[in-house]
C-alpha cells in the first residue's frame, strides 16, 4: 500500500471508529451519571450554564410571543432543580466562582 493510502486509512479509522467509540462511551457514562442523580435526588438540572443563558436571552428577545410560555416553564424547572438539588449534572464551577 502507498504511504498516502495508509495515511488516509488511518485518518478515516480515527475520524470514524475513534469518534464513534468516544461518543458512545461518553454518552453511556453521562447517562449513568443522570440515572445516579435521579436515584439519589429525584432529578437534575436540564440545562447547562450556556444553554440556560441562551434560553434567557431568547426569552428577553421574544417575551410576548406565544412560545414564551414553554420557555418560561423550562426556566422555572431549571431554577427549581438548581435550588433543590445539591448535586449538579453540568459543570457550574466557573459560574459559582464568578458569583462568589
Amino acid at each position, binding site marked *: 500500500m502507498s504511504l498516502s*493510502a495508509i495515511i488516509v486509512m488511518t485518518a478515516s479509522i480515527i475520524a470514524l471508529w475513534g469518534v464513534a467509540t468516544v461518543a458512545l462511551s461518553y454518552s*453511556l457514562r453521562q447517562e449513568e451519571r443522570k440515572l445516579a442523580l435521579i436515584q439519589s435526588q429525584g432529578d437534575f438540572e436540564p*440545562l447547562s450554564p450556556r444553554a440556560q443563558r441562551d434560553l434567557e436571552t431568547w426569552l428577553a428577545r421574544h417575551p410576548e410571543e406565544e412560545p414564551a410560555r*414553554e420557555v418560561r416553564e423550562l426556566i422555572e424547572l431549571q431554577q427549581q432543580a438548581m435550588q433543590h438539588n445539591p448535586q449538579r449534572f453540568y459543570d457550574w464551577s466557573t459560574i459559582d466562582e464568578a458569583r462568589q
Partner: protein
Amino acid sequence: MTTTISREQWGSRFGYLMAVVGAMVGAGNIWRMPYVTGENGGGAFLIAYFLLLYLIAVPGLMGETSLGRHTRQGLLGTFRKLYGNNRFVGLGLVILIFNIVLMSYYSSIVGWSIYYAFHALIGTFTQTEFDTAVLWQNFSGNTALNVGMHSIAMLMVTGILLLGIKGGIERLAKWMMPILTIALIAIAIRGLTLPGAMAGLEFSFSPNWEYLARGETWLAALGQALFSTGLGWGIALTYGSYLGRNDDIPLGGGIFTAIGNTSFGLLAIFAVFPIVFAFGISPTSGAELAFVALASAFGSMTGGYLWALLFFMGFFFANLTTAIAITEVGVTTYREEKSTGRSKAVLTICGIIWLLGIPSAMNADILGYLDFVVGNWGLPLATFIIMIAIGWKFDASRLRVLSLNRGADLYIPKLWEPIVRFQIPAIMLGIMAYFLYSNLSQTPWKTVSGLALLTLLIPLCMWIMSRRRDTSYATTPSGGQPS
C-alpha cells in the same frame, strides 16, 4: 388540540443508540459505500464525505430528532403541532407516503438477504462447482419466490413491531448491531489475510486529489451522506419522539448516529474490498456485488461456510433493522391519527406495505423505477420539507434553546441555526435540480413521469388533510404546546 397518547420510551441509552444506528445502517453501507469510495478518488472522496457529514447530516439529524422529542408525535402529529390543523399537514403526509413507498420495495431487498442468509446457513455457497450467478438469475426470475421472500420479510417486520419500541425494536437492535459489528470485523480480518487483499484497500483509500475539484465527487459524497444517514425521512423524528425529556440528542442522535452509521461503511470497505480484489472480482456496487461476486468468493475461501454465514446474516440484520425503522414511521403516525392500539396500527401499515410491495417483488423494473423516483426526488424533497419545518416554521433558534440543548451531553451553539435554515434546504433544492438536469436527457420518460407524480402528490396530500381537519381535530395554533 392534538392529543398525545400514552407513549413508550426507550428502555436504555444503549438500546436507543443501537436502534437509531441500526435504522441508518442498511444495504447502502455494505454494497454501495466501498464502491462509491473507490470510484470517486478514494481518500479524496472520504474527505468530501466527512465534510458533508459534519456540515449536513449531523446538524440535520440533531434537528429532526429534537423536533420529534419536543412534539412527542409522529409525522402528521408533528406537522399539525407546527402548522395547525390545516392543509399544510399534508406535507407530513407526503413524507409518510415516501416512507411507505420506500419500504414497499425495500422489503424485497430484505427478502433477498433472507434468501441468501438461508442459503449460507444450509451451505449452498460452499458446494463444489456451485455457480452463484445461476442462483441469482434463477432467484431473480422466480416471481413466486420473490413475492414469498417479500412476504416473509414483512412478516418478520410485523412480528418485531408488534412487540413494541422497547420489547421489539430496541431488544432486536441491542443484539443485532453488535453481532453485525463482530461479523464484519471477523470477515475483514479474514479478508485482509488473503493474498492480494491490499489492492482492495489501495483502491478504496488511495487519495486521488484531483477528484476533489470534480463536482461529481461532491455529489456522490452528498448522496451517500444523505441517503446513508436517512436524514429527513421521518425516522430520526419518530425515534426521537420516544426519547425522554432530558435525554441527550446532540451527541447520541446527531454525532453518534451519523458517525456510527458511516463507521459501518468503513467496516464494509475492510470486509468487502480485500476479498473482491483477492479474488479478482470486478469492483461494482449493488445486488450483484453481494449476491453474485461475494457469494462466489466465500465459496472459494477456506472456512467459506462461516464467512458466508457471517456476511449474509450481518447483511440481513442491517437490512432488517432499517426496514423496521422505515415501517415504524407509518406505525407511530397511524396509531396517533386513529387513536388506536399498536397491534392494529402495525397490522394495518404492514398489510398496506405488503400489498404495495408485491409489484416490486414481481418485477425488478418496478422496483428500479420506484427507487429512481424516491431516491432522486422523494427523499431530498422530504428532507427539504422537514428542514423548512424545523428552521422556519418551528424556528431553529427556539428548537435549539428549548429542546436540542436540553439534557445535552454536548452544547450546540447558534451556528447550528443557519445550517438548518439555509444550508440544508438550499442543498436539497440543488440536488433535486441536478438530478433533474442529469436524468432528463438520459431517461426522459422516467424523469418526467416521476416528477409529475411528485408534483401531483403534494397538492393531493394537502387537499386530503384539509378535508380531514373538520372531522377529527380542532385547530391547534402554530407550534402548539407538547402534551
